[in-house]
């Protein structure tokens, strides 16, 4: 017996050596020495200039005077700003959105929908649906995230979640931090079956939850092996929901607006499950009930669009268009809003401000909150958080919501959320402090593995010697007798250019697929004239003017002309 144990130990150690040897063979060290960075260890602390030693995915040491060992790869991240990697508290990262089924499923008869058809699928698990090489994983990582709490896509009760690390493993199992973390519910009706409305969903939810409880009770009765107890009915969905009923697993209720919040709160009060309000955009009217119920909140950083009116004001101030031509002023007068219209616009603007201030409101009320990336664009999310900060959210609370709070919610605060000795080496590197509007993420480390954000120029090619593209150019395009005017703006960004097209009605659209070849420039725009319409523009420049054509959707090709109005000539 003793001998066998020794044999096992020897084998185990030997096996371990083999593994190590294999890894070193691949030529990648797992040890990093990150030199001279401004490190913020946890929200609310000052950034200090220091170095970090990372060994096998774990922070080994932090300090200004520490030295690397011989097998450390040295990363000269001089003066970069480093924070604990962000944690996405809810999303569908790695899971492709199913194509909307065009045809409604034919059911044998309405109302007889089974659980699956009704959108009750608590047995669905995220991991089974995650594609490890899906671009959403790297997109989220590029935006500073190291972990994502992934739920399967679904309807009323979508299924249970997997917490994944955003690495580039080949197999989904290698992403898993932990599995079966939480359940997700929403007020989404079924597709072509019962329930078809929010009232149907609530009724079905209540009934399903009640039956889950009865199944647990019946199982307990059966386990006592008394006479007269026939075997309890086994239903997969009840089994899967049981941990929620027993309060062992939290229920993330998707509640974008205050009405959803009120409805979820009523359900929770009646049933007592552990609830997190998820993907919230606006909950202000319900704030007292949220506070009283002690619910945690996941805010969506997907904010309503900023109003055009405000952009115009800002634009005018910034550029000080003293030379705005008289024609445009005339047009402005004709478009002047009535008092009623101004009133409506004002309320819209106030509401928009209120949306921005939701995070600050939660902070003020001491409600624990994190961010859900389920319906947010990773590339825009920091911009949203900075806007929330302007609307009153403190830096400490903002950073907590991205790191420590989700770590606690997911019960991994011992390993993630702050940068300390012994914790996971999961961090994000900025070129400036994170709240600086211009800060860019240079690299992200996930469990000790470094991913560098490559700077990609926004345009291809470069202008010829005579062409000074940078600046503003007017445009005039004659679309079947209707003359549209506006301006193109080109900005030099790093190695390339970016551009926007702004109509005189102040509809601003970014240029896509910008290609510059000598004095020829082509780009694409997506304009909205009732419905999104693609426009392809091809311009040929001569000194300070250009001509070309614009192909507008199916409508045809039209002549575009213009000249430089602002910028180096």
């Amino acid at each position, binding site marked *: 017996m003793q001998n066998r144990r020794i044999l096992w130990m020897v084998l185990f150690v030997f096996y371990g050596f083999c593994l190590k040897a294999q890894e070193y063979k691949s030529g990648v060290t797992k040890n990093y020495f990150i030199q001279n960075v401004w490190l913020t260890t946890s929200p609310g602390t000052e950034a200090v200039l220091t170095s970090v030693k990372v060994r096998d995915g774990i922070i080994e040491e932090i300090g200004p005077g520490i030295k690397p060992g011989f097998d450390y790869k040295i990363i000269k991240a001089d003066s970069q700003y480093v924070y604990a990697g962000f944690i996405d508290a809810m999303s569908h990262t790695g899971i492709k959105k199913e194509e909307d089924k065009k045809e409604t499923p034919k059911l044998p008869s309405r*109302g007889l929908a089974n659980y699956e058809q009704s959108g009750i699928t608590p047995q669905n698990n995220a991991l089974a649906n995650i594609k490890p090489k899906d671009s959403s994983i790297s997109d989220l990582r590029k935006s500073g995230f190291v972990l994502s709490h992934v739920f399967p896509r679904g309807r009323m009760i979508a299924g249970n979640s997997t917490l994944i690390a955003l690495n580039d493993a080949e197999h989904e199992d290698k992403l898993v931090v932990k599995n079966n973390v939480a359940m997700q519910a929403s007020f*989404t009706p079924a597709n072509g079956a019962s*329930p078809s409305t929010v*009232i149907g969903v609530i009724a079905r939810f209540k009934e399903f939850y009640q039956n889950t409880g009865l199944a647990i009770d019946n199982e307990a009765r059966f386990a006592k092996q008394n006479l007269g107890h026939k075997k309890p009915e086994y239903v997969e969905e009840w089994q899967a929901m049981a941990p929620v009923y027993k309060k062992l697993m939290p229920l993330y209720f998707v509640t974008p607006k205050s009405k959803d919040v009120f409805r979820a709160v009523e359900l929770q009060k009646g049933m007592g499950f552990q609830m997190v309000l998820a993907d919230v955009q606006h909950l202000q009217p319900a704030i007292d009930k949220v506070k009283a119920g002690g619910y945690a909140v996941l805010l969506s950083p997907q904010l309503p669009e900023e109003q055009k009116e405000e952009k115009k004001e800002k634009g005018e101030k910034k550029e000080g268009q003293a030379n705005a031509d008289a024609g445009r002023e005339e047009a402005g007068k004709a478009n002047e809003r009535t008092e009623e219209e101004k009133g409506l616009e004002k309320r*819209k603007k106030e509401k928009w401000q209120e949306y921005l201030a939701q995070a600050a409101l939660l902070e003020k009320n001491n409600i624990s909150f994190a961010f859900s990336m389920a319906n947010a664009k990773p590339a825009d999310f920091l911009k949203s958080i900075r806007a929330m900060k302007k609307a009153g959210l403190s830096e400490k609370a903002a950073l907590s919501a991205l790191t420590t709070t989700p770590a606690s919610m997911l019960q991994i605060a011992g390993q993630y959320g702050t940068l300390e000795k012994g914790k996971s080496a999961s961090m994000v590197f900025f070129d400036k402090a994170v709240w600086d509007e211009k800060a860019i993420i240079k690299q992200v480390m996930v469990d000790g593995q470094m991913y560098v954000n490559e700077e990609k120029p926004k345009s291809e090619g470069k202008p010829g010697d005579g062409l000074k593209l940078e600046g503003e150019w007017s445009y005039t395009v004659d679309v079947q007798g209707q003359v549209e005017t506006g301006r193109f703006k080109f900005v030099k960004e790093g190695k390339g250019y970016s551009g926007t097209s702004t109509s005189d009605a102040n509809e601003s659209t970014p240029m896509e697929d910008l290609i510059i070849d000598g004095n020829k420039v082509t780009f694409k725009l997506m304009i909205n004239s009732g419905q999104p319409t693609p426009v392809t523009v091809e311009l040929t420049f001569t000194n300070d003017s250009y001509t070309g054509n614009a192909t507008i959707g199916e409508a045809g090709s039209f002549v575009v002309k213009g000249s430089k109005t602002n910028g180096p000539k």
Partner: protein
Amino acid sequence: MIKAINFIWIILLTLPLCVAQKGDVLIKGGTVLTISQGVKEKTDVLVLNGKIAGIGKNLQGPIGIKSIDATGLYVMPGIIDAHSHIAIDAVNEASHPVTAEVNVGEAIDPFDIAVYRALAGGVTISHAMHGSANAIGGQCQTIKHRYGNMDPETYKMEGAPRTIKFALGENPIRVHGEGQGIVPRTRMGVEQVFRSAFSEARVYRKSQNDFKSGLLAMAPAYNLRMETLADILDGKILIHCHSYRADEILMLMNVLKDFGVKKICFQHVNEGFKVAPELAAFGASASVFADWWAYKFEVYYSTAYNAAILTKNGVVTSINSDSDELIRHLYHEAAKTQKYGGLTDDEALKLITLNPAIQLGIDTRVGSLEPGKDGDIAIFEGHPLSVYAIPQYTLVDGKVVFDRKNDPADMRLDVDPDEKFDFKFYERVAERDKCMQDVTETLFFGQQYHNALHGH
């Protein structure tokens, strides 16, 4: 001044008004139409903590009480609409001929501007109903128009009895029989839907009782639909049934007799005049339109004398709106019964106050101006049955929730920050009853059209 008022409103609206507030007010010197105790000239009405504390001459309230000078104005109980679909986010769960398990009270929309518009017509309470797509539809909710509160729960009239929507005739036949090829395909089928649902509920209730008493060892599955139906059989829920034809009205009364159900209010009941004595004998009440018909085949045989005939036969009758437009002038609708049927002022006003209150089981609380009742009051310039009547103030629980002179122009509570205004083009949607909301597109253009429109 207007700016100051707007400012006050913004402050009021941003306060977290989670608890419906009750008000104190003294309404001085109006012509008080009590409904139950005649008309009292130059009389004061005192409301304290949301309840009517006194009606009489020279009443005094506590120092600093809000006072409304009603000299030359008419003061009447808040109007009650026994059939509407405002302030709810879902009307028809049309996925089965029986959907007793759903409850529109679980999807109240406190931001619905239609509530404010109803207040502008003196309506303080409405019966937010499930639609008429199913033979047995969902449960309804009696709501108080406490506009300005953002918590849906504050709209529910506390203590109001539970009610449920039933429907006869063409709607359930079209949606389920013609639409899905299932029972009910005919009017006979509709009857069988009721009979089998009630029978099933009896069996269900027995098995639940058997478990409770220990006859069954294992708990039977919980069925919210059957729970609700069993509650109807136990008399815990009032039925409000969408109906037009006399033969079907008699049919449902026979079904209810067989199952021992006593309480029912027939809605629309356009052929009620044909079976008025039978309705009275059963103890059924009727909630009708003043003069709205011919919008589908079964609604051609109608008369504007319906309300008067039912009233004269001793049937408790009300006039309802079923529309967020009609709800703004129910007093006009009531006045039509004086032209068609010669009802007295009190009889006509009862159609929109005390009688709907009786039908909703809330007549001990509202429907007339009496000490002890709720301070739900509408104040008119001109007699409310006059074509020149203009509502001036509407109060719910003693709080002014509509003030014609002082309310700002934009009374919306919720604004969509993504809303696109197009001031040049305003599409006017034709007015129609909302009973078939959520199902008509599906019905006439198919599920695909519905999906394309609603994205689900």
